C-alpha cells in the first residue's frame, strides 16, 4: 500500500511524515515534485515546509509543479489526498480544497501544541476518530489563518466538512476556528497542525496517531 510523500524544493517535513507513517505500518515513499506519475500510489501526502520558498504566496508556485496534475487525478479518482500545513495551503491554491490561508492574527509565527476538537468524521483524516475527541497537536505556521468566501464557509459547515476546529483559544484567528477541512467526497483533506509531530510518547503526545491512522485505513478501500 504505497503512500506517495511529495517533496517540493523547500519542503521540510517529508522525513517526519515518512517516519510517522512507517510507525503505523504504512509503506511511504518520497516523490520529487517533477515526477508526473503516481499511478501505483493508493494515497498521497503533501507534507509541511516552504515549497518553492513560499515565494510569491504560500503554495502559489507549488500548485504548478508537474506532480500536481497527478495529485489532481488521484483526487478525481477518489484516492486519498492529505495536505499538512504547507501541503494544506497548496491544496487550497490548487483548488482541491476551498479557501486560503493568510497571516496569523498576531502577525507572528506560532510553534506550539494546540488543542483541537474533532468536529466531523466524514473524511479520510478523521474517519476512525470520534466527534468531540480532543487532540493535543503542534501547530507550526505563519500563514495558518483560514479564510474563505462566506458561501464557502457556510457550505463547509452545513456539509460537516469542517473536520477539525481549534478548541479553547483560537491561536491564529482562523475563521470559525477552522483547523482542518475536507472536500465533498471526503477523500481530500487538509489541516494546519502537524499530526506527525504527535505520534510517540517520548515527543510528548500521541494524539496525532488517530488522524494518520484514519488516513492509512482509508487506503485499503481506495478506488482503482
Amino acid at each position, binding site marked *: 500500500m504505497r503512500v506517495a510523500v511529495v517533496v517540493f524544493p523547500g519542503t521540510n517535513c517529508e522525513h*517526519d511524515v515518512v517516519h510517522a507513517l512507517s510507525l503505523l505500518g504504512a509503506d511511504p515513499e518520497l516523490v520529487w515534485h517533477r515526477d508526473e506519475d503516481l499511478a501505483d500510489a493508493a494515497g498521497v501526502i503533501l507534507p509541511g515546509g516552504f515549497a518553492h520558498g513560499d515565494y510569491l504566496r504560500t503554495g502559489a508556485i507549488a500548485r504548478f509543479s508537474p506532480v500536481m496534475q497527478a495529485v489532481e487525478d488521484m483526487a478525481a479518482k477518489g484516492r486519498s489526498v492529505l495536505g499538512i500545513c504547507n501541503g494544506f495551503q497548496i491544496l487550497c491554491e490548487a483548488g482541491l480544497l476551498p479557501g486560503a490561508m493568510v497571516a496569523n492574527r498576531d502577525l507572528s*509565527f*506560532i510553534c506550539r501544541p494546540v488543542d483541537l476538537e474533532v468536529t466531523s468524521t466524514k473524511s479520510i483524516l478523521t474517519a476512525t476518530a470520534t466527534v468531540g475527541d480532543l487532540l493535543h497537536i503542534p501547530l*507550526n505556521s505563519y500563514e495558518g489563518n483560514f479564510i474563505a468566501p462566506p458561501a464557502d464557509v457556510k457550505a463547509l459547515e452545513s456539509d460537516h466538512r469542517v473536520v477539525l476546529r481549534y478548541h479553547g483559544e483560537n491561536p491564529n484567528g482562523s475563521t470559525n476556528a477552522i483547523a482542518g477541512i475536507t472536500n465533498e467526497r471526503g477523500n481530500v483533506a487538509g489541516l494546519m497542525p502537524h499530526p506527525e509531530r504527535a505520534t510517540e510518547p517520548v515527543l510528548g503526545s500521541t494524539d496525532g496517531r488517530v488522524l494518520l491512522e484514519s488516513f492509512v485505513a482509508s487506503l485499503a478501500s481506495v478506488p482503482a
Partner: protein
Amino acid sequence: MSDAPLYRRLGLTDDEYERVVGILGRPPNEAELAMYSVMWSEHCSYKSSRAHLGRFRHDQEWVVLGPGENAGVVDLGDGWLAALRIESHNHPSYVEPYQGAATGVGGILRDIFTMGARPIALWDTLRFGPLDQPQNRYLMQGVVGGIAGYGNAVGVPTLGGEVEFADRFSKNPLVNVMALGLMRKDQLVMKAAAGAGNVAILIGASTGRDGIGGASILASASFAEGDEEKRPSVQVGDPFEEKKLIEACLDLYDRSLVAAIQDLGAAGISCATSESAAAGGMGMDVDLDAVHLREPGMTAAEILMSESQERMLAIVTPEKAEEVLRITKKWEVEASIIGKVTASPDLRVFQSGQLVADLPAASLSDDAPIYRRPAAMPSYQEALWADLPDLPESVDIGDALRHLLDDPALGDRSWIHEQYDHMLFLNTVVGPGNDGSLLRIKGTEKGLAVSTDGDSLRCYLDPERGAERLVFEAALNVAVTGARPYAVVDNLNFGNPEQPAVMWQFTGVVEGLASACEALNVPVVGGNVSFYNATDGVDIYPAPVVGMLGFCDPMPQRPPRLDRAAVGMEIWLVGPEAGTDFAASAYSRIVLDHIGGRPEAADAVSARSVTEHAARLAYSAPVLHDISQGGLAVAIAEICVKSDVGAMIDVEDWRLLLDESPHRVIAVVPEDFDLAVEDAPVRRIGTIGGGSIDFGALGSIDVTEAHHIWYHALRRRLSLLA
C-alpha cells in the same frame, strides 16, 4: 578618509601592507589587496586572539576534529558523529537586524553541512540594550524575526538559547548562533583540496555585489556615528536557496562524489579557494569568468570579496564532475566549474584571460600577523570589587519575586521561541523553556543535550571566575536532562582588543573557560572570537558564550522538565552551602539597582559531584532545575508557574533564597524518593501544594500573580511600538 591609501580604507595597517609587499616581492594589485584585506582581517585571521587559543584542550579520545576545520566533530559510538559550531553575527545584526541575524543562521548551517553532517538543530544567544529604548525593541524584533524567518524556512529547528539585556549592548547587540549536526562516520568530509588536476566547482547562489568587505570593514572595526553607510556590507539571505543547497550537498556526499568541500562565508571566493588549497598543501587556478554572477560588470576584486550567501566550493576528481553537475541540477541548484587544483603552491586568479592575482595560497590563511596585544587590569576593577551591595537585614521574598519575575531576561521567553520551529525532525524530547535541550537520535538509545550560557555581568565583574562558572553552569544544564558534558564550543565577544583592559578581560575569560573545561575533562572543539564590539568608544561587557554539548546513552525516556511538579511532591536542594554570593546576582542588579562586588570562585570538586549526581537523578526525578539567575527563589517560582502549582518553602534566611552561589540544583520528587548520595549534600526545603509560593515568615506570592508577571515580562515591553 577618501584620501587615505586603498589598503587603509580596506582595513589593513601600514605594517600589514609592508608584510604583503614582502610576501609578493612587489606591491599587490587591487584584487590581491582585496584578498589580503579580508583574509587578514581580525574576523578571518584571529590575529589578536590566536596566540591565546592554544590554551584550550581538545585531546580527549572522543574528539574526531578539534578547532581548525569548519566545525568540531565528536564520536558518539556505533558509527555516529556529531558536528558542532558557534558563530557570531554581531555587527551585521546592528546595521540590519533581520538580514544580519538571518545570514548568521545561514552561515553557521553551512559550517555544519560542509562537514558532511545534516544540521539538526540551532540555538541562539542574544544580547540587547534595555527594551525601554525604541531602537533596542526594533533590534530585538528584527533579530528574532530574522532567525525565525531563515531558520524555519531553511528547515532546521531552533531549540532555544538565552537572552540578556544591559546598557552596554544598546549600540552593539550580540547575536551568536550555535548549530549541531549529525552524520555517520563515513560521511565526514574535509576542506583540504587534494590531487592536482581536481576541479573546483562553485555550487549555489550566484555571486553579487552584496556583503563586499563584510569581514574586514564591518566585522573588524568599531562603530561610530554615520555608520549607516555600512549597510551595503550586510549580506541578504535566501533560506530557500540554502535548503536546496543542503539537500544537494548531502546527496553529493551520499554518492561519494566530492573529495573535499568548503563553504563560502566571510571573504567569499578568496577564502574558500585559498583555505582549501592551503589546507591540502596545493595551489589553485581560478577562472572568474566561469563564476555565475548576479549582475554583469563586476570587477575581479568584487567577485573575490563578495560575501553573497548560500555558496559552497566542492573539490571533485575530473571524472566525477559531470555527475556532480547532474545532481546539483536535479536539486535546482546552479553550479560552475571555476578552477583547478594545481601542484604549485600558488593561487592564480584569471579574468578575461588576464592573470589578475597571483599569490602563495597559504599566505592568505597562514601568514597573517599574530598580535600579542598588551593586557592590563582596568583601573576601575579594584574599586568595582570593593563596591559591595548594601544588603538589607530582611527581605520580603514575595516582593522580591514581583521585581525579579518582571525582568525580561528572567521572565517567560516563549515570545521568542514560539516564533521558532523547534520540533522539526521529531527529535525534540526536551525543548525550549527548560535548562537544556534534549534530542534523541532516532534508531538508537542515544541522546544529545545542549545548553548555551552567557553571563556578561558576572564576567565584567570577574572575567576568569565568571567564565569558569559559565562552563560549570552549562554542564549542570545538560546534566539535568541526563547527559554528561561531552564537548564545548565557545563564542568570545569582546570590545576593542587594542585596549589593554579588553585584552585583560579576554585572557581572563580564556583562562577561566580552559580551566573549567579541564576540570570536567570536556574538550573545546571549536569557537569564534568577535572583537571590536564597541561603539563610540564604549566597549561591551566581556560576553563569552558557552555552547555545551552533553551526551547520554541510553537517554532517559522521561527526562525531567520544569512543568512536571505535582501536589505532594517534595522539594530538595542538591549542592553545597550557599547564601553569600550577591555580586552579579539578579537581586543586586534588579532590586538593589547595584552593579559591583566580586563573584565567588567556582569549586571544581563541587561542580563535578553535583553535575554527576544530577545526571544520575535525571533518570527518575520528575523535575530538576539548575539554580542560576535569581537564585533559589526564582528557580522555585519557575517550577511553580510552569507546573501551575504552589509550594511551601521552609528556608529561614532570605540570603539562601536570593544569592547565586554556584553548583546547586533543585529536585522535585515524590515523597518516597531516595536522593541519598555520598559526595553531594542534599537538603529538603519544602513541599509542592497550595495556591501560592509561600516562604512562611519571609513572604509569599500567589501562583496566578507570579505567572501573570512572569508571562508578561518580555511581552509587555515588546508590545510597545518600536
